[in-house]
């Protein structure tokens, strides 16, 4: 390929990318207009919600964005593993919730010094998430139930279980949440200005780095990649496909559990219904965009966290439903996916590899007949 055509393709890709974002913004504006609000005002409130003010960065609000980013990154890290293995771990929401339930149990029932207590809570959450994910994995490997359906069911079961606990055994009279946890059981903010947990932030960075290395450098990472592309062929090449499915699911659940623990131990300080707050699904959207290019995950996740953080102001300031964040994120992802398709079309499909006459024609038939 010549340099100029490569440049041309870069320009084309960039142009289509910009166009898809522009279309997304336009659609969002129309939707906002449809409910009788002003897109400009919404934009202002969202940027305000992120902490971008004319006088500079409002650290308190900005830390709100970071506090969405941290659990989202935990989830994305886990989902990179399942995505590489070709698994749709839609059950990540439930894994967060079950992790949060486990962390809550330790927070309420165990009394130890903070340095032991908090790690124990997080470990319980991680193991709980891993357990919940492994159940979905077992349903798939042993029961033939696709992980999408297993995951959806397990999401709802985790949610119902947490509501049951909140409204019954663990609840206070209102039934809206558990009583606030003791101070010693919580993750603490760095400062009163920058209200972000240092422990969670560092752990997130370590975990992400570790998974990135595991996926790119180890034999196990290569095995996952192989079975993600073709489970059947990977099996014949000697990859322990079934074990890897369970491992990948459990590992992702582990991360989701950690994300859940951050939500209860830092964001809320108690257990609430739907404690995952859609962050698990958002993680799936992020990973859909990045594919297996792990290094793209942090910036994209941050962008999505900013939309989420910014839109928390909408309800109070403009009486607009917070679901707008989901609408914007969904439209963006959809447009990027469609744009990928458009780019593929404009570039023309890869001309089929010049087949040797030998196996090729038969292979074509085989491909059609499966």
């Amino acid at each position, binding site marked *: 390929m010549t340099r100029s055509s490569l440049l041309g393709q870069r320009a084309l890709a960039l142009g289509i990318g910009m166009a898809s974002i522009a279309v997304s913004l336009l659609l969002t504006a129309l939707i906002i207009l449809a409910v009788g609000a002003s897109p400009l005002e919404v934009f202002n409130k969202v940027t305000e919600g992120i902490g971008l003010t004319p006088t500079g960065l409002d650290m308190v609000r900005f830390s709100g964005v970071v506090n969405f980013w941290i659990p989202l990154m935990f989830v994305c890290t886990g989902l990179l593993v399942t995505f590489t293995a070709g698994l749709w771990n839609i059950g990540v929401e439930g894994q967060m919730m079950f992790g949060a339930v486990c962390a809550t149990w330790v927070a309420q029932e165990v009394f130890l010094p903070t340095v032991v207590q908090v790690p124990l809570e997080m470990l319980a959450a991680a193991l709980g998430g891993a357990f919940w994910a492994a159940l979905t994995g077992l349903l798939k490997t042993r029961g033939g139930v696709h992980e999408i359906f297993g995951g959806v069911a397990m999401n709802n079961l985790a949610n119902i279980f947490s509501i049951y606990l909140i409204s019954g055994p663990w609840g206070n009279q209102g039934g809206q949440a558990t009583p606030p946890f003791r101070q010693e059981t919580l993750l603490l903010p760095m400062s009163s200005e920058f209200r972000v947990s240092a422990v969670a932030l560092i752990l997130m960075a370590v975990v992400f780095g570790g998974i990135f290395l595991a996926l790119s*450098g*180890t*034999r*196990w990472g*290569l*095995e996952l*990649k*192989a079975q*993600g*592309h*073709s489970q*059947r*062929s*990977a*099996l*014949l*090449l*000697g*990859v*322990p496909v079934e074990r890897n499915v369970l491992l990948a699911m459990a590992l992702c659940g582990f991360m989701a559990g950690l994300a859940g623990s951050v939500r209860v131990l830092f964001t809320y300080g108690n257990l609430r219904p739907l404690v995952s707050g859609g962050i698990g699904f958002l993680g799936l959207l992020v990973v859909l965009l990045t594919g297996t290019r792990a290094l793209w995950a942090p910036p994209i996740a941050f962008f999505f966290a900013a939309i989420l953080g910014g839109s928390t102001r909408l309800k109070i300031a403009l009486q607009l439903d917070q679901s707008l964040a989901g609408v914007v994120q969904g439209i963006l992802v959809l447009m990027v996916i469609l744009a990928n398709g458009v780019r593929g079309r404009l570039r023309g499909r890869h*001309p*089929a*590899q*010049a*087949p*040797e*006459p*030998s*196996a*090729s*024609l*038969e*292979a074509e*038939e*085989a*491909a059609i*007949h499966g």
Partner: protein
Amino acid sequence: MSVEVRHIHKTFGAVHANDDISLTFADGRIYGILGENGAGKSTLMKILSGFYLADSGQILIDGRLVHYDTPRGAIEVGIGMLAQDPLDVGPLTVLENFVYGQPVGPLPDWQAARRRFAELAERLGFRLEPDMPVERLSIGQRQELEIIRLLALGVRVLILDEPTTGISAEQKSVLFASLQRLAREDGLTILFVSHKLEDVLELCDEVAVLRLGRLVGTAVMPVTTGELVAMMFGQALAPPSRRAATPGDTVLEVQDLFMASERVVMRDCQVCVRAGEVVGLAGLDGSGQQLLTRACVGLARPLGGRVLINGVDMTGRPYRDFLAAGVSFGAAGRLEEGLVAGLTLAEHFILTDAGQGWWIDRERGRQIAEERIAHYRIMGRPDSPIETLSGGNQQRVLMALIPPAPRLLVLEHPTRGLDVESARWIWEQILARCAAGTAVMFTSADLDELVTYSDRILVFYAGQVTEVPDARSVTVDELGHLIGGQRVGEEAGR
């Protein structure tokens, strides 16, 4: 109805699959289209039957120029093709498959269709149960259904693409008899595509030979085998030379194997394969061979009986344990089973390299890949994604992934769809391993391949396994009768 093709050209990428082919076919005659796999005969037939559009050239019917670019269009001018794997719809019943595609109204008259189907089947001597789902039929029965269907569509030119692969001798003689009747009595033009000389010699009135995309000659029967061979190959190719097998210890022992699939139940199957010998598994598709091969590598769990590798009971153990015990498996030789699109060549070698540690040594992977690329003469680099390799080179990679001397090598259809050169090459590799002491067991639908390479042949019929007493002297015709259910030693008359 006569058909003429003039100056047909068709290329796929760099391959000139049809290079200036001109032929005329008259009605009432049976033409053999002969050539090795990859000679371009399937391409030409797909152009005639509307699946491909020729890059250039003309098709004339009864002297009149016709244009079409869909199978439907071909049917409308009277040309229909029976594909090697018949293009039918598995879960639909025989009758539904028959009606689907006929020019009927939105509400077909099912009773009338049933009568018409029975009538046509009767005339051709085919016995088919109209309410049976097609997925439960054998290849031979599906071919019969497809012929009935095409005739009902009013086809006057019937193309058959390699119809004798995978059917028994009885099914073949029924097929040949009905084709002859269609040509003689109904005046149909029949194009019989094959790479098997004896079938063409037995059935056809005229023959056209293709090689490497070009028409190399036509002849009116009778012609001698020698003439045809010379046209097909340029020069005659002998199979790789074989020393007499001196089998060693028993490597694979199967005792009282009990397995079942939807189509067949296999009980009390006993098999034994020794080091250095080649055991061929013959039988119609779905007669139990695949159950055996899958059980012997740990990909299917037997319902009863035992599988021993080197005397160790491996029954019910996973595939990986079989690999560790020195078993290698090649499934049907296709990209979907064995190679991972999306991974590079080097990554394939890393995955199968026991010497790789927990942390991947990419340099070692690259070196091994380069070694194998050189040794197996693969056109590709260590970092080439596997899907960018040509089919023949992917075959070579599959072979390169098999260790140099496994204890047991189990192969399903090792050369299906390969051209003669590639098939030869594959067998050289297999026999080299065999000479080094590997026990080989393979399935094939190609009776020639079974007869040529097997030291012993096991015949599968409806789950029953019998050994051919003297595999080195059995003929293709005898084997054809055996896979059709005839007992060993029974008279081959009909």
